[in-house]
């Protein structure tokens, strides 16, 4: 099995061929957005971070921006910097290590947002022209990494959509590819099961540690986490506790051994199944998967989330028949639990769709142009 991917200098292959226009700090967002809007073939990444934060959060932001720039779906990157945040050169160097073209425009150095916009346009147009010369090639599916996420879950997510996505993950991993899933709060209550599937005691310990860290954040707030996760919508749809939600959520990664645990913004080393530390909240969770290097995201939803991402196609899968009918505008695939089809068969259909999307088929979120307000997850406050 294979897909049509865009070859990159580091040997990876993109499912898309965008020029990424990435802001290094929230103050540069408008200029990044303007450039991406004006140049066909560009995709923006803007966020609310990058200044007034302590060292651990700043390191997370920088690591995430470098990893996003290295995602194979980007042919080249224009970084838009304010200047005084001081991180742009470090991020340029990090992305340049992948071998792809990267350039910086800094608003304060160039003499204002107008000048930065003009210079950014010039660079982005040249990069988009160069990128348009890259032809897709037939690439072995072992080059693929699927990011897996569930959002706006209900009880059908754990019964139908997640196990089917899990079966698709097992198929890709059997063929030498990689999958990554996370949402640490949605491992809580099921971490003991995942820990027994770790390839080593160290990895098992890390799984327990990220869940413990996340639970301690909830405990420090002095409140019941229920209401935040599971959310009000989850509860109205029948999910009673985080344990129930987690037990239904962890099956979305399939059944293979867990090779490693990545910090948010890190990229997995090697092939197979990985866990990503991070939140369940969608705009930040999906960013983490894109930063990990996923070229395609399989996203299960019960109640019906519209989520997309600027440069990674997000395939929406639901097992809720009402959602599939009512929100057909955002739903890519339906999994029928009541018809008793087995998850392997359903997983095969999802796997085929994933390869089709990796080869260029547009997802509903792409066709709607939805998902242009992502963010980066940090754990500290802003000062």
């Amino acid at each position, binding site marked *: 099995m294979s897909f049509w991917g865009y070859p990159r200098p580091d040997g990876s292959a993109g499912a898309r061929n965008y020029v990424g226009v990435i802001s290094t700090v929230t103050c540069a967002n408008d200029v990044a957005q303007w450039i991406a809007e004006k140049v066909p073939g560009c995709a923006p990444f803007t966020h609310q971070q990058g200044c007034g934060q302590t060292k651990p959060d700043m390191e997370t932001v920088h690591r995430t921006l470098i990893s996003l720039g290295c995602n194979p779906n980007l042919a080249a990157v224009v970084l838009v910097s304010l200047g005084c945040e001081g991180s742009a050169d470090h991020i340029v160097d990090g992305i340049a290590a992948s071998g792809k073209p990267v350039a910086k425009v800094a608003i304060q150095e160039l003499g204002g947002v107008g000048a930065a916009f003009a210079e950014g346009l010039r660079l982005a147009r040249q990069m988009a022209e160069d990128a348009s010369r890259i032809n897709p090639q037939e690439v072995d599916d072992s080059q693929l990494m699927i990011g897996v996420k569930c959002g706006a879950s*209900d*009880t*059908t997510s*754990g*019964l139908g959509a997640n196990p089917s996505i899990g079966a698709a993950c097992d198929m890709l991993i059997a063929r030498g590819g990689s999958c990554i899933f996370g949402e640490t*709060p949605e491992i*809580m*209550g*099921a971490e003991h*099961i995942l820990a027994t599937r770790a390839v080593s005691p160290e990895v098992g310990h890390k799984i327990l540690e990220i869940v413990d860290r996340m*639970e301690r954040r*909830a*405990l*420090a*707030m*002095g*409140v*019941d*986490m*229920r209401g935040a*996760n599971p959310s009000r919508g989850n*509860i109205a*749809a*029948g999910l*009673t*506790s*985080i*344990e*129930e939600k987690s*037990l*239904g959520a962890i099956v979305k990664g399939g059944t293979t051994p867990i090779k490693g645990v990545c910090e948010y913004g890190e990229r997995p080393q090697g092939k197979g199944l990985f866990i990503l530390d991070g939140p369940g909240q969608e705009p930040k969770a999906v960013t983490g998967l894109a930063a990990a290097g996923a070229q395609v995201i399989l996203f299960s939803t*019960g109640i019906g989330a519209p989520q997309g991402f600027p440069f990674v196609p997000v395939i929406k899968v639901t097992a*809720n028949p*009402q959602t599939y009918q009512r929100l057909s505008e955002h739903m890519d695939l339906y999994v029928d*639990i*009541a*018809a*008793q089809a087995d998850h392997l068969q359903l997983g095969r259909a999802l796997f085929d769709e994933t390869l089709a999307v990796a080869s260029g088929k547009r997802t509903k979120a792409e066709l709607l142009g939805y998902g242009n307000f992502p963010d980066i997850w940090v754990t500290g406050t802003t000062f």
Partner: protein
Amino acid sequence: MQKKAILIDKKDNVATALCELNKGDSIDVGIEDHAVTTVLSQDIPFGHKYALKDIGQGEAVVKYGEAIGLATQAIRQGEHVHIHNVESQKGRGDKR
């Protein structure tokens, strides 16, 4: 034949509705040779759970073969099982 509800693991003491279920309905669920028939004492909305057997106060509510929380009151067979009678054991900053 479309299933009206689903049982996931033989150890479970709850099942999940796959359509709107009504008080008085008699619902069959099963896995292999393990079959359970329950007469519902309350309406159960789509996606919500009902008790397959009596669950005592403080006992674990089990789904996927694992505890999803503890019963905060006695739950009778056929009753709706949700946040009104189950509490989570995780992320409980309010219980410190």
